[in-house]
């Protein structure tokens, strides 16, 4: 991981074109203001972390990006176009995939089926062709199976290909969930606490996968994580939130020395 920490100067990450821009996002649940006027951007090819204490509005932010919540105010710009308020499955079709804080896999389906389901938005054959297992449908299935197998190889989960994911241990489930999100070949990958509840080795593995995804596929990643060591090591830029507001934004070194951030995490002397 250390090589990455030194690579902040690497031109590719964090200096590319803006992939997604969030402008003045405010989200209310009744009288509760979950996010208040937060703006930041995500650049092509970078690893962007969102951090903050519990209840800061990080997950809500991710839910806004993936179309699950619709903010009352603010604009979301994706790939140079303003995104109208849309249902999550339409957001997915635009190339945004995500994982969940509490694993949200399809428990009774196999690993392979979970990953194949991740490719849902890329599969085009008609209902009738699928019902008849007609030439094009079968060919499409095979093509996508090849792509899915590549992800299975990448994550090293060949042995659990045909096992229902509900029976797998936690660490592997997290890995399968990453695979399912990767299967969609997303432009933007959102990871909600990818390392929650993992031991050190599992965290290292997961960090490695995240860096590899970013390096090999050039996928832009936005992630929420509580492990500061990991966040500081792998991310290119960090947004810090507290009580629904943005209190810091910048490279890990800047964040580390930001007084607001230190106050938010350690408390302020009164």
């Amino acid at each position, binding site marked *: 991981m250390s090589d990455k920490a030194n690579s902040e100067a690497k031109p590719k990450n964090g200096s590319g074109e803006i992939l997604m821009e969030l402008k003045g996002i405010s989200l209310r649940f009744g009288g509760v203001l979950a996010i208040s006027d937060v703006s930041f951007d995500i650049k092509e090819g970078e690893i962007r972390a969102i951090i903050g204490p519990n209840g800061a509005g990080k997950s809500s932010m991710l839910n806004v990006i993936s179309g699950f919540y619709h903010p009352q105010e603010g604009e979301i710009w994706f790939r140079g176009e303003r995104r109208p308020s849309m249902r999550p499955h339409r957001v997915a079709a635009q190339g945004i995939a995500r994982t969940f804080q509490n694993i949200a896999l399809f428990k009774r389906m196999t690993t392979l*089926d979970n990953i194949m389901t991740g*490719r849902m938005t890329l599969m085009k054959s008609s209902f009738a062709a699928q019902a008849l297992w007609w030439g094009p449908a079968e060919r499409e299935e095979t093509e996508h199976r090849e792509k899915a197998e590549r992800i299975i190889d990448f994550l090293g989960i060949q042995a659990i290909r045909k096992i229902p994911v509900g029976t797998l241990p936690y660490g592997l489930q997290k890995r399968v969930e990453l695979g399912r999100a990767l299967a969609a070949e997303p432009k933007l990958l959102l990871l909600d606490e990818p390392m929650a509840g993992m031991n050190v080795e599992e965290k290292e593995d997961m960090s490695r996968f995240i860096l590899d995804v970013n390096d090999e596929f050039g996928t832009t990643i936005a992630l929420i994580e509580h492990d500061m060591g990991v966040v500081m090591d792998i991310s290119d830029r960090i947004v810090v939130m507290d009580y629904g507001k943005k209190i810091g934004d910048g490279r890990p070194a800047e964040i580390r020395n930001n007084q607001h951030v230190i106050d938010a995490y350690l408390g302020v002397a009164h």
Partner: protein
Amino acid sequence: MLYREAGEFRTSYPDDSQTFPIAFDKFRYYAILAVLFVGVPFIVNDYWANAVLVPVLVWSIAALGLNILTGYCGQISLGTGGFMAVGAYSCYKLMTAFPDLNVVFCIFLSGFVTALVGIVFGVPSLRIKGFYLAVATLAAQFFLVWLFNGVPWFYNYSASGQITVPERTVFGIAVTGPYTEPWAKYLICMFFVFVLAWLARNLTRSSVGRSWMAIRDMDIAAEIIGVNPLKAKLQAFAVSSFFVGISGALFFSVYLGAVEASEAFGINQSFLVLFMVIIGGLGSIFGSFAGAAFIVLLPVLLKNLLVGRLSWPTDIATNSEFIIVGALIIFFLIVEPHGLAHLARLFKEKLRLWPFPH
């Protein structure tokens, strides 16, 4: 060690995604098909066709349909009886309105009509889930049966309120009406079972089926990764109703010949099909067949045993039948809550290692 997978190498993805990737399974499947299509028609008699084979086949189709909806897509429905009635009555209307139309087309068309009705009654599923959805589909059950009893147009203004199937032939052989040979009844049902099971298998192994299962297992995540819940749920309702409608059409035209909506397609039938699916195994095509066979054949078997062998008085036998069937259902659900299909899988696992324990 009777059943082994060793030495089976699959080197391409199409090979691996076959229904029966193991050679032994495949040949056994072909052998069973050959016996069912070529062997059985020659030996089947009136009793076997009417009391055993035809009801099992017809109910299997209904169970397959409900299994697609409940087992694969996770939407509970108690409207199966009502949808079977739609199939039966549309089949009747089509057969009487277009006497020249081949009965096979009539039956398929009634499936499509039922699919449309199913989509309409599936709309509440977009908002409500679980038990509440079951209650909503219950409305379909009562409304549809009421409709077919209450509007004389559906039974062509017949005095009895019943619908009676006209005689129709396929390739010059009667398949409906009182003069149908048992083997013809059996074969036409077998044809539909074969085609529909094949369709069900194809749908459940492709992306349509995966979208259903995704909705079943975690609907929020499914939507986030790109499954359109509206489309997936309504598709499931449509396909399920298509199957159930065909089952109803066959139930009326081939099996019974004359039906009356509230008697033949009451709430009892809805529960019966639900039991078949639960006992057979949710989310399993084999389970649909196993469940249908279990529910249909158990009473027949008990009757033969109690009255035929043990020569109990008929009334006592009939009542004990209910008790025994009920007890067996409870027994099975406790011993194997995942259904007969899971039991079969466990048996296969054991057989793989037999005679060794591990």
